[in-house]
């Protein structure tokens, strides 16, 4: 039982576990559709999921170890002798730290589709184009907030072989 002017100091140790699963798939192909037209296409898929598991046992009060109430603050426990004790002011490791698990979970999927091609008008003169659609889809917000996003990009042009 603690008196005013005393404190408990120590540490809680437990084993943490971090698990990471990442899948990456890519498919691509090109096709000479006609003598003048060549097409290409690709698909890339990423799926990542990380989890952190760290559990603390709630130890706000240690059995018969009570903290003397600070004058002016409400007391949670009053003993038969009339002494006042405050367990509400305790630093509870479980309450303070278990949210770490949630903020350490990572989950996202990314899809990227690309379609392109080249058409030869003559042996030296051609046109070329490519278009990509990219999606980043978060399953859980990590420390960077909501990172969901999509992008469309590509190019079109004329070319000359020499």
């Amino acid at each position, binding site marked *: 039982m603690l008196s005013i*002017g*005393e*404190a408990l*100091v*120590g*540490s*809680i*140790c*437990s*084993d*943490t*576990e*971090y*698990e*990471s*699963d*990442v*899948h*990456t*798939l*890519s*498919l*691509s*192909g090109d096709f000479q559709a006609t003598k003048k037209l060549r097409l290409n296409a690709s698909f890339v898929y990423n799926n990542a999921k990380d989890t952190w598991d760290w559990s603390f*046992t709630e*130890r706000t009060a*240690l059995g018969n*170890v009570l903290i003397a109430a600070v004058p002016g603050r409400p007391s949670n426990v009053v003993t038969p002798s009339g002494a006042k004790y405050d367990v509400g*002011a305790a*630093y509870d*490791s479980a*309450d*303070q*730290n278990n*949210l*770490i698990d949630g*903020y*350490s979970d990572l989950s996202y999927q990314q899809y990227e589709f690309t379609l392109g091609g080249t058409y030869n008008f003559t042996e030296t003169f051609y046109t*070329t184009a490519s278009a990509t659609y*990219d*999606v*980043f889809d978060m399953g859980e917000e990590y*420390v*960077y*907030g*909501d*990172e969901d*996003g*999509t*992008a*469309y*990009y*590509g*190019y079109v*042009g*004329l*070319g*000359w*072989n*020499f």
Partner: protein
Amino acid sequence: MKQRHYWLLALLSIVILMTTTTLAIAEETLISGNAEVRVSGINTNDNPARVNEYGTIRSEKGLSLAPKLSLDSVGENSSLGIDVDIMGIHDQKVDFELDAMRIFRLKSHYSVLDHWKDHETLDQMGATMAGDNLGKQPTVSTDKTFYDSGLSTIGGLNPGYTPTEAGQRYYQEMDNDYIVTRREFKNEADLTLPALPNIIFHAGIRIETREGMEQAIGLSKCAGCHVSAGGKDIDERTDDLTFGVTGKFGPITVDYEYLTRNFDEDADAPGRFYAANSNSQLLYNGGDYEYARTPDSEKDTHTLKIRGDFANSTSVVGSYVKSDIESSKSGVADTSYTLQNGTTLKTEMESYGAKATTKLGKNWRFSVRASTYEIEADDNTLYFANRVGVTSKAFTSDGYEDWASAEERKVTEFGADVVYRLTSATLLRFSYGYEKIDREEEELGETETNSFKLAIKSRLTKNLSGRLSYMYQDISDPFGADHATGIYQGTGTADPLGSGLSYAIIPVDEKYWDAVYPERTLSATNQPDAVHEVKLNTTWALKPNMAATLFARVRYEENDDVHYEQSTVVPGVSFWYAPSDKVNLTMAYTYSYQDTENRACVGWYHG
């Protein structure tokens, strides 16, 4: 720094280029390639920072002119190659190669790339902030939680601005786009004079710049009581200049290179307000101070290699490297602390290495290697005022303890490889390696590593080949701190319910440096003391138009002293198929799994 070297190099390059190009043009040349005029564009929705992390075409939506040129010119004795691929203002690659009469060779590369940088919300500070009391230890506050609270102090201290201003700062900071544009211009030139055909002179120049803005996160007071973020301007430039010479004298090849590097950060460092505390120590000083400043640095390196090639596939290689690095924060306005030797930190590295390889008969091949290097960083030692005796209540200055930098160490390595040809299509390899890292700071450990590796490489059939290897490492005292965590673990009163808590009762006004930090009994590291790793790689050419590759890596690490265990499994497959001469198909899949366990301790204060 040393700008005169750049002018000298540029002048020398122009003179040689004009001379040799004139000679090259006189030859009959064959020119081929293609040129494209393109228009590129990008449109993004929601958050572009991840979906367009490496700035394809441009970092934000819009159109760009996107020219492309590929040109090859080949003559009898000379050649020229140019590749230009410009997709946008900040998405560019240019490569240039010239071989003029085999006298002068030049390779140049220029690239530009945008990178969206990380941008934390700081909401994760709430992971240890349940029941937040705005900065009173051990919890933390942020500008957002201060704004939401409407209170005027943080943990009883003046934060330097009102909650309304804190809210403005938070939302302004969240509006920042953290993008850094990286440019690199690299040139490597070789000169071989006809009068000295066995000597090649080398020169190179590399200029790298980074411009933009990154997020800087600062924390006030003695711990993480108030955490806030701000934009940090980036205006960095790295200049590398190399000179060298390679000489071949019979069986002996001598190679020398000198590198000088200069790094400057010209942007102003961000600043923040630090609340004052009654203790007159640096960590408790109040006022506006810079933080997150990147120091300028200079590096000079000399590298000498000597190689001898002899009969029976025997070779001997020796090397010597000496490097001096200086890091300076000379532009810092804050003079509340000083370094022991002015404004510069100095690091020196000196390395010696040797390797010998030979062949015995048709089936055996041996090689041995040894090296040693030492990093001295005397200037990087920290000195802490002694805090002696459990009754001391205040800062004392009756003596100092020093803490040497982790980089200050001596490293000794040696090893041997044996290769045996089992059959005409099968090789067996055994390797042994030893490494000893003797760190100046004893608390960080003296690490010894013994590595053993066994591998077999074989072409099992005409169409099937593969490689299988196993590696084992035994590591004593891996890098870590011996008394880093676990306050009163094993020395205090253990929680009878088995929660992992251990504690002691102390007077409430006892200081941390008397009753907490000296009572840490456990070591902490994320490094293993034993490693097992198996690798497999096979290639199967099923048909002339079909091939598959299967690979896998399995690794297991452990360190019982800190309850550390890590398992890694990375299998993958790739497949190529051409069903006709008009169609090519490829597929690749990789799965990466990793599971890590480690002991973690948090401080526990009650009362």
